[in-house]
Structures are given as structure tokens and as C-alpha cells.
């Protein structure tokens, strides 16, 4: 049976430390645009930790919500792309083929979660930072869109290993960089088609909800939080 990759994010566990953001940058060769460009809100964080304040001072609560590509089953970014740069893989991922992208940025407008990012300039890694580039991930040039891939390079590597060893993938064998670096274990990744996997079990939890579920995008990321009666 084909895999169907998904993730759960436990908001009650998230401490907002930002390790996932850093790990994602390192793993996926995401360019660091510098302070001037970041001030123009051109920073590219494939995963971001949204901060929301609840209540009035001094009775405030701080809430964190890590948001990455929701890998929607009915993704609004896919039909609008004129060149199939944004397309659905057989394993249900929203892939972005950088070489096909001509930079209409239509996908980013259609995405309700604003998790797509644009390379406004050619990326630069001042020496010796170029030595830390991940050889398994392509570096994007100016004018293309990029976004969270669920660390597809790690998924492929694990699948190839399993195939070579003629065995099934084990649950928890694949960990995207954000999941690996999450010290609070708020993030869980796995195969939603395997009913016994941890991510499937958590996705079925009554604590679970999808982000902007009412839009009908069928996200594969589930947010877990204590449900309160309002």
C-alpha cells in the first residue's frame, strides 16, 4: 500500500523554542536573506512558530503554533500552477519542482496558510557557510517558489534503504528535521495509511483539529490541543 505522509503538532507541548525553524534551515539549504531583506518580510521560514497572545494585560497567555506546509489533499496551490511546478505526488505530498517553476507566485496567493516562499534574489552563503550545505537538497535560484517538503530527501533515502534491505518501513524510521529537533516532542511524523502508526493514532485523537479545516483543503497536518468549551 502506498504511503500517505502526515504530521501531528501538539500545541500543548510546543514551547516555541524555534529549534524546528533552525533545523529546517540547515537541512533544506534555505537561504538566510539578511536583516535588510528580512525587514521587508522576505525571510524564508518553511516552518514558522506563530505567536498569539490571549487575554488582556496582566492576565495574558502566550500561545505558539508552528505552521508549515499542510500538505493538503485538495491543495489550492496545485491547480493554479501553469507549469505543474506545484503538483501532487503519489504519496500525497505537495511537491514543488523548482526547475519547472517560472515564478508566477500564483500558488503562494492561493495558499490559505501562506507557507510558500519566493526567492527574491539568488541565495548567497558567505564562506565558510557554503560548507554546511546539504548535498541531498537542491539549492534554489532566483525567481522560484519553495516550501516545506516534509524533508522528502529523508523520506526517499529511507524508502530506498528499506527496499534495498527488502523490508517494510518501520514507524518512526523517518524523521523530518523539525521533528528530529523538537525537544518537547510536539511534532510527530509518520504514515497515515498505517492505522497502527503513532501519527495515525494521534490524528484520530479528540484533541485534534485541522488548520482552517472549513476551507476544505484536507490538510495532512493535525493540531492537537486541549479542547475547551467556549
Amino acid at each position, binding site marked *: 500500500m502506498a504511503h500517505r505522509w502526515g504530521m501531528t503538532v501538539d500545541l500543548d507541548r510546543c514551547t516555541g523554542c524555534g529549534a524546528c525553524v533552525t533545523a529546517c534551515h540547515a537541512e533544506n539549504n534555505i537561504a538566510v536573506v539578511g536583516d535588510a531583506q528580512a525587514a521587508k518580510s522576505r525571510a524564508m521560514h518553511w516552518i514558522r512558530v506563530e*505567536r498569539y497572545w490571549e487575554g488582556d494585560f496582566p492576565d495574558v497567555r502566550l500561545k505558539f503554533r508552528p*505552521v508549515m506546509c499542510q500538505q493538503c489533499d485538495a491543495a489550492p496551490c496545485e491547480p493554479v*500552477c501553469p507549469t505543474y511546478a506545484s503538483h501532487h505526488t503519489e504519496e500525497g505530498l505537495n511537491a514543488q519542482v523548482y526547475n519547472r517553476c517560472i515564478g508566477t507566485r500564483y500558488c503562494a496567493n492561493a495558499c490559505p496558510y501562506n507557507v510558500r516562499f*519566493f526567492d527574491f534574489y539568488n541565495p548567497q552563503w558567505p564562506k565558510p557557510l557554503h560548507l554546511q550545505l546539504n548535498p541531498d537538497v537542491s539549492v534554489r535560484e*532566483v525567481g522560484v517558489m519553495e516550501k516545506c517538503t516534509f524533508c522528502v530527501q529523508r523520506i526517499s533515502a529511507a524508502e530506498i534503504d528499506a527496499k534495498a534491505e527488502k523490508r517494510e518501513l518501520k514507524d518512526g524510521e523517518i524523521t523530518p528535521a523539525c521533528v528530529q529537533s523538537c525537544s518537547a516532542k510536539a511534532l510527530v511524523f509518520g504514515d497515515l495509511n498505517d492505522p497502527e502508526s503513532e501519527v495515525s493514532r494521534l490524528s484520530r485523537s479528540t484533541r485534534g483539529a485541522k488548520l482552517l479545516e472549513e476551507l476544505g483543503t484536507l490538510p495532512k497536518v493535525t493540531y492537537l490541543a486541549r479542547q475547551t468549551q467556549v
Partner: protein
Amino acid sequence: MKEATAKRIADDLLRPLLNTSWRFFLLVAILGAIVLTGASAWMYQVWNGFGESGKRWPVFWGFYITNFVFWIGISHAGTLISAILRLVNAGWRRPVTRCAEVITAFALMIGAMFPIIHLGRPWLFFWLMPYPNQRRIWPNFRSPLVWDFFAISTYLTGSVLFLVLPMIPDFALVRDKTTGVRRKFYGTLALGWQGTTKQWHRLESAMQIMAIAIIPVAVSVHTIVSFDFSMAPVPGWHSTIFGPYFVAGAIFSGIAALIIAMAGLRKFLHLEDYLHPVHFANLGKLLLMMSLLWTYFVFAERLTTWYGNGTSEMNVFWVTQTGSYSPLYWTMVICNFVIPFPILSLRRTRTVTGCVIASCSVVVGMWLERFLIVVPTLGHKYLPYSWGPYQPSKVEIMIMISTFAAMGLLYTLFAKFVPIISIWELKVGEHPFPIEAAAQVKEHAILRTNP
């Protein structure tokens, strides 16, 4: 009006082609310089990276798409109006049709450049076209941007045909009146026109077919442009009203552009004997009607949004109504309704000057309308964490200014090389053409037999 004989018509309207003053060269030089500045601004952006534009996360579309929609909208004056006036056989259309159709052709060319200018990798723009290629992949026919490509190229082809067909007899006239290089040039363009009955008959049939065919194409083009927005599940865009709303706005801004162009031609080419106040008054009435229609669409769109009271829709609603975009929003309402409505309603102010003032106001207002559709929505999508502002960069502003100059330049050059008013159609108006007269007689006969 002075007696307009066939000879006088020909002399008056050929004068701009045959005599060139220093003013023409000065105008071309100034407009050309502005266009070149715009072109170099674009090259600067391509060379340094798309970051030279003002786009940012999350407002990924800005001035370029605004100008795209605006110019495609302007293109709806010409061909559509001219086709409708031809079909209803409105006699007063004769001096108006050609200068209207030219607007369509040039505005489309300018508008169609913007989707390319706005690409992150503009050197790969041809990947939008379906052609056999080594990548072995077709364009995504589900994408409204690919629909745009087909719609605009069809409309451009159709309106250029519609423009060129009735120019053929005029080219022949110029050919017969000139010598040397000019004779050769216009002789080629005239495609061997001799003015035989058969040729006239074919021309008339072709014009009829094109006039009927171009109307649904024109309506569909701006509907498809509106689909760029309404197909995306984004608050403020995802609305069924967008198709007709865009078409109405397009015709609205198009008529305004036509009135401005006609006033310019009338003044600079001394065509007071041909473009009468009655032409401006008639187009002014049409502009008034479109202003009312546009206001009705805005009202209907705003009211349904407000009544529906969807959380995300209301964010976009209030940011335009009372928030940071409200100065632009209310300027738009003033420019598109408050100013033109009284000017065009009263017969006393529906003069040439009055119509031009109203038209200038409408052009500004409609540009703002396009901007307010694109930008506030993108800056205020669902998650408040990802809201953001937008500010155009110098490059974007320069490119925008240069497109207005490009329109002026193309129009000036066209008026220099082609009679801007259709000479033969004017003559037909003075002395009804045999075929047309015969057709009218036949029509009367049919009416008489089938009361």
C-alpha cells in the same frame, strides 16, 4: 460644420500622414525616452533579481498585476464598442470606430507584457504555451494563467484583424495619392485592393462576421482575467460576481480612455469637423451608464460580503472600508461615481471638456479599483500572523509610467502612418454605398412584408 465633400474628407484626414511638423518628432522623442527608461528599469530588475520590485511575503502580486488587469480593461473600449455600434448600424460611429479599435490593439499588447514582467524567471515565459518540448510536459490546463494566455492571444488576433480589415481601402487610397517609397509601402499594405464590387462585398461580409465573433471573445477575456482571482480560495477574491464585475469595469475604463484619446486627436490633428461634440456626448452617456452599472456592482459585492459576515472576508472588507486602504477606496468611489455622475448627467456639462474631465477621473478610479482588488486581499488572508503591507518600488512605478508613455507613443505613431479616421466609411456615410443602400432597401422590403 463645413461642407464635407469626399475630396475634403480625404485631404483633411491624409494631412497628418503627408506633413510632419517638429512637434511630432519632439513628442515621439519624449515618449520614446520614457519608454526606454521603463525598459531599462525592467532590465535592472531582471539583472539584479526580482527583489527590486516591492513584492514581499505575503503580497506576491502588486503593481504588475494591477497594471495587467487595468490595461486589459482599457482594451475593452475599442473593439467591443465598435463592434456593437457597427451591428446596430449607428451612423455616428463612423469617425469613432478606428481610433477606438487601435486602443484595443495597443492596450492588449501593453497589458499582455505584464504577466511576463511579473514572472520570477521571465526568460522562461514560453513555458506557458503548449508546444512540443524536450521537457515532455504540457502546460497545466487547469490553471487560469493558461486560460489567460489563450484568451488574450485570441482577443489580440481577433481585434487586430478587426482593425486591419477596414483599413485596406484606406491604404489603397493613400497608395493612389502618393508616390515613391510611400506608394510602395501603402501598396503592399493595401493587398492589391482595386475597389471592385466583389472586393467590397467580401470586406462587408468579413466585417460583419468579425463584429459578431469579437463580442463574445471580448466578454470572455475579462471574465477569464477575473478568474485569476475568483478561482483562488482567498477572501475577497473567491466571488461569483467577479466575471461580470470585471467586464463592466473594463468597458467603463475603456470608454473613458477612448474619450481621452479622441479629445487628444481632435485637438492635435485639428479634427473638429469630424469628431463633433455629439460624439463626446453620446460616449458620455455610455460612460454614465457604465458608471451606474459599476457602482451597482460594487454595491452588490460589498453588501453581500457585509451581510454574509464571514470572519476572513470581513477583515478584507474593513481594511478597505475604514482601514489602511480606505483613503484609496473612497478616492476610487469619488473618481468613478461622485465626479463623473453629475458631469455626465447634466446636458450643460456633458461637453467635450466635461467628458474629458470625467474620463480622466474614471481612468484614475479604475486603476485604483484594480489595485484594491489585488493588494488588500493578499495582505489580509486567513491567518492574522501572516498579514502584511505592500509598497511599490521605484522600478515598479517607473515601469508603470512607461506603459502610459508607450500607449501615447504607439498611438502617435499609428496616427502618423494610418488615417486615424476611416476615410471610406465617412464617405459612405455621406453618400450611402450602393451595397449598403441595397441592403437597406431589402430590409425595408422585409419589414413591409412581415409587419
